[in-house]
């Protein structure tokens, strides 16, 4: 009589994902499969998203045409290129003009605000 083969019971252990792993999974995958870079960037522009482009793609984008402005205080940012889906440490960032001052404070803004405030105080003091 053949002996019954003994198999090890399968033990299922639920994996405990860390918060960093959960967040990494939330990162957007980028350009959908089959879309051209230009069409994808055009869609992002229509949604007023920040556009990040690597040195090889950035010259193909005309920010003024879409009411965008280049971030000049940070000439380079680390990001995934919206054109070629490659993470690059020398990307250029473009912000929609309307939202730029909602989310960015530049040295020029701070200088202008301080100057206006000092001028107002001097006027009140009659100097």
């Amino acid at each position: 009589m053949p002996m019954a083969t003994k198999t090890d019971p399968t033990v299922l252990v639920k994996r405990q994902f860390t918060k960093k792993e959960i967040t990494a999974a939330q990162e957007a995958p980028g350009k959908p499969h089959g879309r051209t870079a230009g069409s994808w960037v055009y869609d992002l522009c229509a949604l007023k998203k920040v556009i990040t482009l690597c040195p090889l793609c950035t010259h193909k984008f005309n920010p003024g045409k879409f009411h965008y402005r280049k971030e000049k205080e940070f000439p380079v940012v680390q990001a995934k290129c919206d054109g070629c889906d490659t993470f690059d440490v020398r990307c250029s960032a473009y912000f929609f003009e309307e939202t730029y001052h909602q989310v960015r404070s530049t040295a020029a803004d701070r200088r202008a605000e301080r100057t206006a405030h000092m001028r107002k105080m001097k006027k009140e003091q009659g100097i």
Partner: protein
Amino acid sequence: MKFEYLLGGGTPTLKKYKMAAGHAAGIVVLVAAAGATGLSTSTTTSWADAVGLTMDPIVNVGQPVSYSVVQNQPEYLQTVVVNPDAVIKALLVGSAANAALETRTVGTASANGLTVVGTTGDTDPSSPDMDEGTVWYSSGANGGASRKITSTTTTLTVTVIMPFAANRVGDKYHTIDYTVGTPDVTLSTDLQNVRGDIAATGAEARVIDLQLNGATNSYLELLISDHLFGTNT
């Protein structure tokens, strides 16, 4: 709120994330909550496990939207600056609904400059307690000068150690419960500004500098103190 600069210099890192809801531009977002479809909104009193500051809005043909439950629709994305040493500039406001910061008026002159005494009708600076915060003038001989508050009393008085110049009745000034290093902030309902009318408590942050101007244009510079990629408590 606005992204201002990086404490350590260098370049910001921008990442596009899937979002659980239509977050506004310029608010802190948190690690995805259990059961949520993307990064979660911060609250007025919590920045626990923050991922960063949103740099663009969620819009669909110009209108803010929530995530779609229609089959095969694209996911909504937002760009987030994820550096843990990103300095966030937050406007100081006087209420949850973003009223201007209270402008107080000197009611009793102080010749030695060690106290600043308000006028009847001003909010009592000891409740909410502004002790260990900052007092600064926006008019008069002390216009633009600020000092750390070392004590407050119910008689509309705040005391400082390093004296101001002598003030005059009618000079305008402001008080907040924040100074360099103060932990935790309470945000306005729209999560865009910091409430300067109440004592410092709430969302996990540290004040690294103050930009003190007038009632509608004074700011805190903040670092998130419970960041997913930095100091995580």
